[in-house]
């Protein structure tokens, strides 16, 4: 399964219409090769479609010119030296078609026509490369803008206590989607411009809390990430069966996970220990063994241990 790159996707997404050169310099059959030389030189192009009465009748290139020059035929007409009835590309075809054409045919350029066969541009390999680069640049720029906007939420939207709250439902025993809530929280923090260390600590704490809901609860629970200007709060709340002895549960290596779950590598009894290691504040409650609520706070600006 090879990875498909963004460029490969773009080749299918973008239409020839978007990358073609729009202002086409054309010549007519009666143009002489000497005149053609001037046209190519003046516009710094390597070929031109040949038009007669608004109809595309051929294409002439710098290669044809060189041959004429070598053969002393500069007075000959373009109409005699051109490639008649050239292979054309349709504007609404994807760029990948053009890539195939360049590989299949030995031409340096293709005239681009619309649905009615009218000439509306020309396409070279250079046009394709330039078009793809522009598109990639635009997309990169859009991602930058998105990052910028997100990281300014807390400056642009003013209140006494602004916070961004992300809620995720976590199903019991749903190992197929295990870690998805944590991954989404991680991505959100990355977009918000949090530092790699903060992202790492939050991701680890969120993952362990998420896994606890998946492994140990009867009916699942909810994960909430609350992002405030100065701290991140992760809350994991479920509806049971609860933890009878929190002190025991907090001991590294203590686990109540069944054997089959341990075989998958879960339930090592290190989850709560990991959470505690990543948290600046941690509160675990499970009154009467009916439900469990875990709250983890990670400071964004203060050093750990500082108040």
């Amino acid at each position, binding site marked *: 399964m090879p*990875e498909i790159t963004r460029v490969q996707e773009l080749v299918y997404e973008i239409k020839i219409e978007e990358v073609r050169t729009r202002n086409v310099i054309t010549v007519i059959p009666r143009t002489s090769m000497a005149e053609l030389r001037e046209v190519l030189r003046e516009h710094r192009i390597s070929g031109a479609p040949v038009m007669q009465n608004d109809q595309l009748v051929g294409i002439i290139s710098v290669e044809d010119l060189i041959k004429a020059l070598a053969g002393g035929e500069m007075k000959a007409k373009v109409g005699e030296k051109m490639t008649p009835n050239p292979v054309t590309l349709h504007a609404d075809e994807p760029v990948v078609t053009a890539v195939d054409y360049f590989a299949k045919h030995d031409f340096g350029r293709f005239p681009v026509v619309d649905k009615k066969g009218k000439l509306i541009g020309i396409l070279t390999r250079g046009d394709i490369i330039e078009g793809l680069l522009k598109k990639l640049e635009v997309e990169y720029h859009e991602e930058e803008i998105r990052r910028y906007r997100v990281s300014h939420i807390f400056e642009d939207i003013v209140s006494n206590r602004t916070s961004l709250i992300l809620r995720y439902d976590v199903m019991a025993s749903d190992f197929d989607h295990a870690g*998805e809530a944590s991954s989404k929280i991680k991505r959100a923090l990355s977009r918000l411009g949090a530092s790699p260390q903060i992202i790492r600590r939050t991701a*680890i704490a969120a*993952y362990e809390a998420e896994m606890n809901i998946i492994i140990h609860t009867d009916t699942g629970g909810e994960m909430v990430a609350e992002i405030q200007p100065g701290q991140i709060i992760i809350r994991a709340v479920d509806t049971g069966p609860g933890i009878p002895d929190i002190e025991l549960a907090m001991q590294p290596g203590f686990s109540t996970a069944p054997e089959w779950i341990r075989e998958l*590598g*879960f339930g090592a009894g290190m989850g709560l220990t990991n959470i505690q290691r990543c948290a600046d504040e941690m509160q675990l409650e499970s009154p009467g063994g009916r439900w469990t609520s875990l709250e983890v706070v990670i400071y964004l600006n203060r050093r750990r241990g500082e108040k």
Partner: protein
Amino acid sequence: MTLEELGRQLSLKVHTAVGKLRTEVTGGYAADLLSCVMAKAQAGNVWVTLQGHPNIVAVASLLDLAGVIITEGVAPDPATLEKAEEQGIPILTTPLTTFTVVGKLSALGVRGVDEA
């Protein structure tokens, strides 16, 4: 050393994320308990494990690991490969045991998180 070079030296089979093999590996970590991996493995590390279920992808992705080497001929679940491809996590496999793989990685200069 990159994951691509390590894969070649150890004759590992690459299953996913071929485009992500050129990143430099920052070190290595081996364990089959996910919480231990969460606690210790560092960004850019290669992780050697016996586990082949989809959650290894979540762990690798959350920690920004360079990739996962699955040992002893364990065939990763199809769901694991699908997820790994989607999230750009290279999964490599080998019939060798974890011990042998780690020994070879160490000989090639890949250091553990507790080694200087």
